């Protein structure tokens, strides 16, 4: 073994992830008096999903009006916001968690503003009955939190890839990490660990997510004995660019479709949403929009490049031109992230954009309670990659809210837990097994390269899982995953340079991604209905009598267990009966 442990570092609370959620976790744990180490595999303030968030952070409309003076509606309340989350999450959200989420959101945003954030606009996004999106661009938010974190007393380790959690029979005791600049492996020992690692969107070939989102936290939690829940609902965003190559996966500024009426067309020029949600059309939620687009593509009605069309052609020229003056923030001048759309499409409004659904968010993840505790003592989780807040579909603007509400809670409860918990010695055999993983990558030469493994994971996710699923392809996915499992401990790297070795990082991430897609396939196979972000061709109806439950997945040794857990309902009566997928809104808010 040429990878000795270089050092051991101890702390009270270890936070994995440093951006929207992780920063908030670390700040709160530090505030509670804990000695905190926060690690990120990227650079602080320059990685992770939060900085790519276009800009809204949701709170109820009334609080938005009262606290920030924006044009909110007094009829809204945290309770009404909670109802929308539950209904639009297709009733699978944990209503206890949703109530906390909407109650605490205003206070969390107020803090951000006190810390220097500026609210640049106020948006009414699809799926919400009231305007709730306070506009704070993700990039500004992450930089603000990073600056605060640096001054807080938290120890920050950048370019540090945590690749295994360490635990004994009493719970989690720390983690093993790879220092990317040197290739050194070291042990982080802690009284509590918080996962703030985000989703696994990079497993899909078309995604809006940054490089880091490979499902590390979910997979490590699973391997450590925690439960994953709602894994059948990876979320897709319907309007993402397919061409040219540089724009692949860049989001067509979603909020523009909230600000201007957009038409989604198939190759026949038909507004196909009329068949899915005739009342709300393109302004339905993103789960339904994505499923509809995927079905058009699947049935041969897609665009030239294999997507669908998005058109503003029905709008008068001067109206389109004027829009740039009142669009908030980055949308001014028709920008999409760091790109000027006019560079690629000079005549905005004249021609349709070619778009397709891209993997954007992870609705499910590690199962947590109100205190962000997982089933493993000492292991906490927050933000994207945890289950229960969004159910089967997330509302626009609610990801940033999640980072702050749940980040603070996780930090608070992890620090409390750490005070009562002792540092314990990591089990030797676990440390050795972790070292062995890295050793094998460098020694093996019989299996596929790590690049080939990553490509195969994306092929399985794109071709066999996708948005629209059915038993046959899911079974094919399962056997492809089994095949890959047989090869993954023989995957090898070709470059032996220890410094920033991309192959080594990818090799370790591949194992995580494979565990995650395995869970997605098993949960998708088990749920024989269509709901939220899951559409089953062979079970196209939403069946409230049979499937109002969350699927909880656990793995013991190599055996998966799936448990159907009834939805936790406290505020809103759950619906009954079967209905056609997509048309859930008619009477849903009457209860």
């Amino acid at each position, binding site marked *: 073994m040429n990878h000795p442990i270089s050092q051991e570092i101890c702390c009270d609370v270890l936070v994995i992830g440093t951006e929207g959620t992780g920063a908030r976790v670390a700040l709160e744990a530090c505030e509670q008096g804990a000695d905190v180490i926060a690690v990120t595999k990227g650079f602080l303030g320059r990685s992770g999903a939060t*900085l790519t968030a276009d800009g809204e952070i949701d709170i109820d409309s009334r609080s938005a009006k009262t606290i920030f003076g924006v044009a909110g509606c007094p009829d809204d309340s945290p309770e009404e916001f909670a109802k929308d989350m539950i209904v639009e999450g297709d009733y699978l959200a944990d209503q206890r968690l949703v109530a906390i989420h909407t109650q605490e959101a205003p206070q969390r945003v107020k803090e951000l503003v006190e810390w220097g954030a500026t609210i640049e606009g106020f948006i009414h996004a699809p799926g919400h009955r009231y305007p709730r999106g306070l506009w704070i661009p993700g990039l500004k938010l992450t930089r603000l939190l990073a600056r605060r974190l640096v001054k*807080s007393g938290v120890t920050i380790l950048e370019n540090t890839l945590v690749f295994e959690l360490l635990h004994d029979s009493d719970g989690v005791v720390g983690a093993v990490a790879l220092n990317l600049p040197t290739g050194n492996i070291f042990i982080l020992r802690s009284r509590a660990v918080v996962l703030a690692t985000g989703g696994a969107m990079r497993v899909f070939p078309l995604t809006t997510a940054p*490089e*880091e989102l490979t499902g590390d936290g979910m997979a490590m939690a699973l391997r450590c004995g925690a439960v994953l829940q709602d894994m059948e609902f990876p979320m897709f965003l319907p309007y993402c660019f397919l*061409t040219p190559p540089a724009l692949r996966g860049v989001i067509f500024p979603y909020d523009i479709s909230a600000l201007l009426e957009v038409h989604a067309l198939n190759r026949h020029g038909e507004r196909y949403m009329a068949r899915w949600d005739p009342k709300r059309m393109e302004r339905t939620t993103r789960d339904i929009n994505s499923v509809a687009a995927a079905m058009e593509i699947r049935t041969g009605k897609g665009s030239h490049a294999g997507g669908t069309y998005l058109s503003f052609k029905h709008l008068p020229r001067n109206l389109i031109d004027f829009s740039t003056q009142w669009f908030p923030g980055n949308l001014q001048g028709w920008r999409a992230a760091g790109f000027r759309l006019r560079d690629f499409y000079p005549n905005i409004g004249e021609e349709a954009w070619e778009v397709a659904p891209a993997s954007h968010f992870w609705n499910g993840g590690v199962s947590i309670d109100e205190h962000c505790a997982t089933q493993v003592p000492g292991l906490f989780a927050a933000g994207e990659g945890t289950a229960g807040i969004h159910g089967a579909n997330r509302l626009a603007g609610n990801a940033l809210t999640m980072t702050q509400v749940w980040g603070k809670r996780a930090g608070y409860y992890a620090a409390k837990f750490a005070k009562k918990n002792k540092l314990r010695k990591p089990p030797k055999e676990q440390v050795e097994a972790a070292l062995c993983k890295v050793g094998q990558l460098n020694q093996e030469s019989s299996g596929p390269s790590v690049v080939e493994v990553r490509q195969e994971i994306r092929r399985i996710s794109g071709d066999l899982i996708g948005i629209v699923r059915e038993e046959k392809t899911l079974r094919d996915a399962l056997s492809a995953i089994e095949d890959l499992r047989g090869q993954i401990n023989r995957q090898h790297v070709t470059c032996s340079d220890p410094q920033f070795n991309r192959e080594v990082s990818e090799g370790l991430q591949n194992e995580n991604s494979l565990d995650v897609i395995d869970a997605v396939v098993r949960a998708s196979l088990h749920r024989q209905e269509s709901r939220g972000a899951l559409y089953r061709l062979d079970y196209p109806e939403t069946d409230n009598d049979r499937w109002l439950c969350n699927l909880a997945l656990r793995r013991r040794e190599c055996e998966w267990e799936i448990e159907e857990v009834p939805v936790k309902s406290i505020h809103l009566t759950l619906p009954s009966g079967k209905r056609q997928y997509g048309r859930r809104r008619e009477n849903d808010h009457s209860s």
Partner: protein
Amino acid sequence: MTTVREKPQTITVRIRRGDREKSHLVDYEVPIEKGQSVLGVLQYIYDHLDHGIGFSASCRIGLCASCLVRVNGKVVRACTTMAEKDMLIEPYKDAATIRDLITELPPLAREAKRTADIQGNMQDMER
């Protein structure tokens, strides 16, 4: 933007490899379509030609700035800069080069307590 697919053309890309003390130039032949980014070219080289090439990227959409490089002398983001013929791609700052195109970024986190010590220890172990 016309949606008619143009035939990919093959370009020669010259990349500075090595560290701040010693470096050399390596040429790669890369097929590109219209509207391919410099980052797309680097990813192609890593995926198909040389798994050992070092480069940084995160968001890939022009926000995080972790993919800063110098293309024909000009510092740019690799993700939002379009690839063209005869490119020389170098680290954005020679003095900050770690390996190939990977460079130290402004060390925001190093201001934090203990952080610099731990990072320093790691490097000492290396030597």
